[in-house]
């Protein structure tokens, strides 16, 4: 069962006790991510020193998948170089959308607990939102949206 493997203990734990949750006292970079389909939003504060992520924090309203993804992301990218962070953003996005072959070398480590979202198209955006928002913050863009036209996951879901 794909779903069961997605809601595994590590994800539930990060949802219950999100790491680096809150705001930074002094942030050099900041971005807000929106998923207008469900109204979820996520704020990310960054403190960059030179080419490294010195500090990172997040807060917002979101589902368990999104919150756990954000929490684990902060623990992984903290202390990383900007280039490494961008590489992880790309690899995570490719994993979530099913274009990354996990059999080949990658740098995702325990982030592979999110691999199951590739089979749940409506939940891919939940997992990716924190990474999009991080990308926006790193590039000094103040907002990110899962529905932005340049978003590779842009595919509005209808309603009734």
């Amino acid at each position, binding site marked *: 069962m794909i*779903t069961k493997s997605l809601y595994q203990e590590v994800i539930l734990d990060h949802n219950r006790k999100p790491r680096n949750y809150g705001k930074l006292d002094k942030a050099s970079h900041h971005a807000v991510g929106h998923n207008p389909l*469900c109204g979820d939003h996520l704020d990310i504060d960054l403190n960059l020193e030179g080419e490294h992520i010195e500090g990172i924090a997040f807060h917002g309203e979101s589902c*368990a998948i999104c919150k756990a993804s954000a929490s684990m992301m902060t623990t992984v990218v903290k202390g990383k170089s900007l280039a490494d962070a961008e590489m992880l953003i790309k690899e995570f996005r490719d994993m979530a959308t099913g274009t990354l072959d996990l059999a080949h070398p990658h740098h995702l480590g325990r982030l592979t607990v999110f691999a199951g979202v590739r089979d749940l198209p409506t939940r891919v955006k939940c997992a990716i939102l924190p990474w999009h928002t991080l990308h926006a913050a790193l590039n000094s863009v103040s907002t990110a949206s899962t529905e932005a036209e340049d978003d590779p996951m842009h595919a509005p879901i209808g309603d009734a």
Partner: protein
Amino acid sequence: MKIIDSTLQPRIDSTLDVAHVRADFPILKLQIEGKPLVYLDNAASSQMPQAVIDRLVRYQTSQHANINRGVHYLSETATAEYEAARRKLQYFINAREDREVIFTSGTTDSINLVMHGYGRKFIGAGDEIILTTLEHHSNIVPWQMLAEEKGARIRVVPINDAGELLIDEYEKLFNERTKFVGVMHVSNALGTINPVREMIAFAHARGVPVLVDGAQAAPHMKVDVQDLGCDFYAFSGHKMCGPTGIGILYGKAELLERMQPFKGGGDMILSVTFERTTYNSIPHKFEAGTPPIAAAIGLGAAVDYLSSVGIDAIAAYEGELLNYATERMRQIPGVRIIGTAAKKTAVLSFEVADVHPHDVGTLLNQEGVAVRTGHHCVQPVMLRLKVPATTRASFAFYNTMAEVDTFIAGIRTVQKIFI
């Protein structure tokens, strides 16, 4: 004329035999994630009985051609079947004449037709349109577009915490600038049944026409447009066991005749020269181009099917499902029902404490239970009730009490995972 398809067994008793009904729906035999499908997303779209599927197959295999054109056998057959479907819909909603029943692509298309055909001709600068907080985006956005174009103003009827319209406030909104009222018969997100008959009477006493969005009512209760007195009534085929891509706009003949066409093209004209075009009579004036003929005939078969089950029996049975599901749900700590109107259809929107609706929906799917999560195209309702999103279970007459139990057990499973 034969209205009821002879292949269906008449069910004259008022009680509904759900086992018998379920056997009519092949999709209900599906397994999802290894579990029997429990389909509780009927407010989004309902499932199709074999009788309707068979009717579509019969049309495509032996009756299809373009309508209103050929003198050949198939064209005449398709035209006759298409017009027969219109009459089935006429009887289903008790319209006075068949020319008051216009085939559209769905409720959204029907409302846009009224906005363009009536609104753009008769609503001007400074005029006011009354809508309600409960409206689906499809009965808000067209009127906003009109208001922007004309310099008109939209007034909104508020709701209480239970999700019921405040009728006193509705009445206070009327003034000499009020030119139109748009109101949904039943709320898609909350299930509230609005007192549209009384609201229409109040508007008519002030000479204001009323459009009723009946998308969530037509499948679940007897709709009589003459008894309601509405000027327009819009609904969709796919929410009432019919195909997608087909819907109905009922309009009073005298209003439809005064309206301008919505779309221009073939079939909606009597004569065309480059100097002048003469429009066809209603309903053809509003059915430009080749319509979804098969879907219209399929919708005709769907209302035959609903009538054979009995619309009053459907309403009574779904009421029992709602009562049972509501009672079971109230027993679960940490679950809050959103939308507690005194008069409701079988729709349950709810929140599970500390669990996001998307997680609820994904985990219920693991139990085979299909529900809807999100804002349900009613962001003003979500804003008013201060919920970002809800999970919604919406029932149909083919759901069972045992399925309610599976659904309730599923919610408890979700809660256990998130403890």
